């Protein structure tokens, strides 16, 4: 009961603020609604007893990425930039992309029904308190079964970081000359 | 320009009882032999009738050098209460100033101001107070100029003149040719009138400006 109340609450907030995010003209307002969406998603994770995902969502998306996002918005005057970027066929393209997306979702739902086993709809739900603590589970699978992908991702991030440093350096050097 | 002036000595001709130390007694350091200082009669006795006799002609090595160099440009060399000043024609002010800085080592423009004499033909006296670190003496240049006469700016020679000239412009309305940024400095930009002119009454103000910008009838 409580779970479903929470789910519908968070779900409603997420959908509503997602809609608002798309419709706001002001980039900063959009950002704020995006934050709300992400937090509501985090809430759904929590309601699913996936507390590690919840906090990862909060720290990474809401805390880290959004702050940087806002930072960039403040610095580069996105309002003006958007104005320049807008083009004539924009609406048409948007509608097409949206239709394509919707079609994809439908196709997935349809295909899922055909899957062996339960498909998308799980009938037997494990009671939440019976679940193992998921941060440990996550760590175990990351460092055993998925060690290689994990390391690859790490190296990729490292490369990106070094690349950023190199780019920043060269720019500074050019400025000094 | 002397970055490291030698340690300056107090003027050695220390007045008998340390009277308010006359700082600009040029001969004291430059040329102790010249009787200029010693010969100065005590400042004119009382009874200051309108043509003042306090200023007496000055003739020492310094002034002689200036006269030799510039001739008629130096209109007069005078001494007032043991302080020397040169009256300089406005035409060659830049040259005199550059010579003062480079040859005579007056590296500091201590002050630059003006005095308004409305009844004179040349209405304003510009007064530049120069100080020389190496010689520890002061010299005043006095430049008589007429109203609305543009005079060359000293900013190139002494950057310190920048704000001082702006203040003169602000207060007296004297314009300086070649000043990089000649605007009012103490009064607001749109103000009419130049308050330190003698014909600007002490109660006078730019009522239009006050009404427009402050929304009141009078600031007094």
């Amino acid at each position, binding site marked *: *009961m*409580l779970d479903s109340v929470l789910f519908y609450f968070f779900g409603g907030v997420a959908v509503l603020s997602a809609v608002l995010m798309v419709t706001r003209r*002001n980039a*900063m*307002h959009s950002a*704020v609604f995006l*934050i709300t969406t992400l937090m509501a998603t985090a809430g759904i994770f929590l309601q699913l007893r996936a*507390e*590690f995902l*919840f*906090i990862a969502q*909060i*720290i990474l998306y*809401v*805390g*880290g990425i*959004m*702050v*940087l996002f*806002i*930072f960039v918005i*403040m*610095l580069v005057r996105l309002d003006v930039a958007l104005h320049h970027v807008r083009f004539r066929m924009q609406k048409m393209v948007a509608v097409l992309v949206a239709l394509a997306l919707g079609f994809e979702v439908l196709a997935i739902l349809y295909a899922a029904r055909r899957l062996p086993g339960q498909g998308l709809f799980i009938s037997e739900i494990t009671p939440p308190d019976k679940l193992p*603590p998921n*941060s440990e589970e996550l760590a175990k699978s990351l460092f055993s079964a998925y060690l290689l992908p994990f390391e690859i991702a790490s190296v990729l991030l490292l490369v990106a970081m070094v690349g950023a440093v190199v780019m920043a350096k060269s720019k500074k050097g050019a400025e000094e000359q | 320009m002397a970055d490291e002036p030698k*340690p300056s000595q107090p003027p050695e001709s220390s007045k008998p009882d340390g009277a308010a130390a006359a700082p600009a007694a040029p001969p004291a350091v430059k040329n102790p032999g010249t009787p200029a200082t010693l010969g100065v009669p005590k400042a004119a006795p009382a009874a200051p009738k309108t043509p003042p006799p306090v200023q007496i002609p000055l003739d020492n090595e310094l002034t002689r050098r200036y006269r030799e160099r510039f001739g008629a440009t130096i209109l007069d060399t005078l001494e007032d209460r043991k302080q020397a000043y040169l009256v300089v024609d406005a035409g060659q002010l830049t040259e005199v100033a550059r010579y003062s800085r480079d040859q005579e080592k007056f590296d500091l423009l201590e002050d630059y101001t003006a005095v308004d004499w409305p009844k004179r033909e040349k209405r304003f006296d510009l007064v530049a107070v120069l100080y020389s670190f190496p010689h520890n003496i002061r010299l005043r240049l006095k430049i008589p100029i007429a109203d609305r006469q543009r005079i060359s700016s000293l900013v190139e020679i002494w950057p310190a003149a920048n704000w001082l000239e702006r203040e003169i412009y602000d207060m007296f309305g004297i314009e300086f040719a070649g000043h990089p940024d000649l605007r009012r400095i103490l009064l607001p930009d749109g103000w009419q009138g130049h308050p330190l002119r003698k014909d600007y009454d002490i109660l006078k103000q730019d009522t239009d400006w006050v009404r427009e910008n402050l929304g009141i009838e009078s600031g007094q």
Partner: protein
Amino acid sequence: MNPTLEALLHFLATWWVELLWGVVIVAVVPLVAGYVVLVERKLMADMQARLGPMRVGPHGLLQPIADAVELLIKEDIIPDNADQLIFWLAPVISMVAALTSMGAIAFGPTLQVARDINIGILFVAGVSSLGLLGIVLGGWASNSHYSIIGAMRSTAQLVSYETAAGLAMVSALLLSGTLSIRAIVDAQRQSGVWFVFLAPMAFFIYLVASIAETNRAPFDLPEAESELVAGYMTEYSGFRWSLYFLGEYANMIVVASVATTLFLGGWLRPFPNVTWLSWLEYAPAVLMALAGGYSIYRAGKQPVAVQTGFMWAVALACFAVAVLFAVPRFVAPLNFVLPGLNGAFWFLLKVSAYLYVFMWLRFTLPRYRFDQLMHLGWYILIPLAIVNVVAVGVAMLLENAGWNRWVGLMVTTAFTLGTALYLVHLQDKRNARASSAKTDVLPGNSYAG
């Protein structure tokens, strides 16, 4: 019965303790924050040879309440060009983040809002850093240059120092092997010593980074009043301003609590496993009684009758608390509250000590400049924190390999310390290069006549 109502009742029956604690936090933290401000002002006054607030209440004790009332009834100004929605939202985000993160903090073995969630420490760190959103949004929404510069400084500062703080926390987490707050404290009980002794460098890094994170001097650049007037808070006034203020002080309490939990043994008394020190269990009662006695001693010296009376009241209050601490120990049926009471006492004592260090530094040190702040963060603290994480890991490996735990930790700590000195040295050299070849001069050696 109506199923909804039934569910609600069931919900209340299961969660009433947590709900109550939640309400207590929301109700009490503002008051506590107010009194932290008062204590800070009094301490500052004492260090600066003056008296501090003296007017409202005896020795200014009611000043926080007067301040709160003043802030509440102050005119609420929203600048014309501000972004109304975000201007309104920003301080709320700041405060809510700070208060929410308090939920996971354990003040004692049984005193915790959230039932021990197994990511407790991450929850506190993650949610409290959301307060930054409030600062950034508020700075942007004010539409003022001071605010926006304050907000930008704040973002850069927090992003940098959060990293160092997080890495410092990792050291303690390595030692404890868990993210749950209670388990961390328990790990310290089992190891017999607080983690601050096992990982002193991590504690130091966390101390510095937490000062920077809470925008306190000497890292108070986002609100440096002599440069940016009030930084991101410049356009705020009255109640909204007080929300920011509250958020800031609540945040201070949060970081102090995290440090206490991770490094200072949480609610444990000093040396929890040394039995001959178990008389420390009586310390709370004894200390309060001593404070009461001192108040009585001072009461006789007060110049005015009112003040004497007040000192007596303080003394009585102290004695009452002392009795409160003492009774459960001697009355068997009440024994069950004992760990909670003592735990809360030690916990709050440690938090206060940590906050005192914050304040002390604030009164003593000048403010960093922004580039210096960034240098400190990126060139010294973050590398050091990374080295420290590795060092603690190595120490644990050594311990597993059969080394004496202390020897291993000492070696690795010495290594980290060496790294720190090397980093500082590098920084000095960088500074020296920046300042070209200029010589120092000290007074006294070059003044000839």
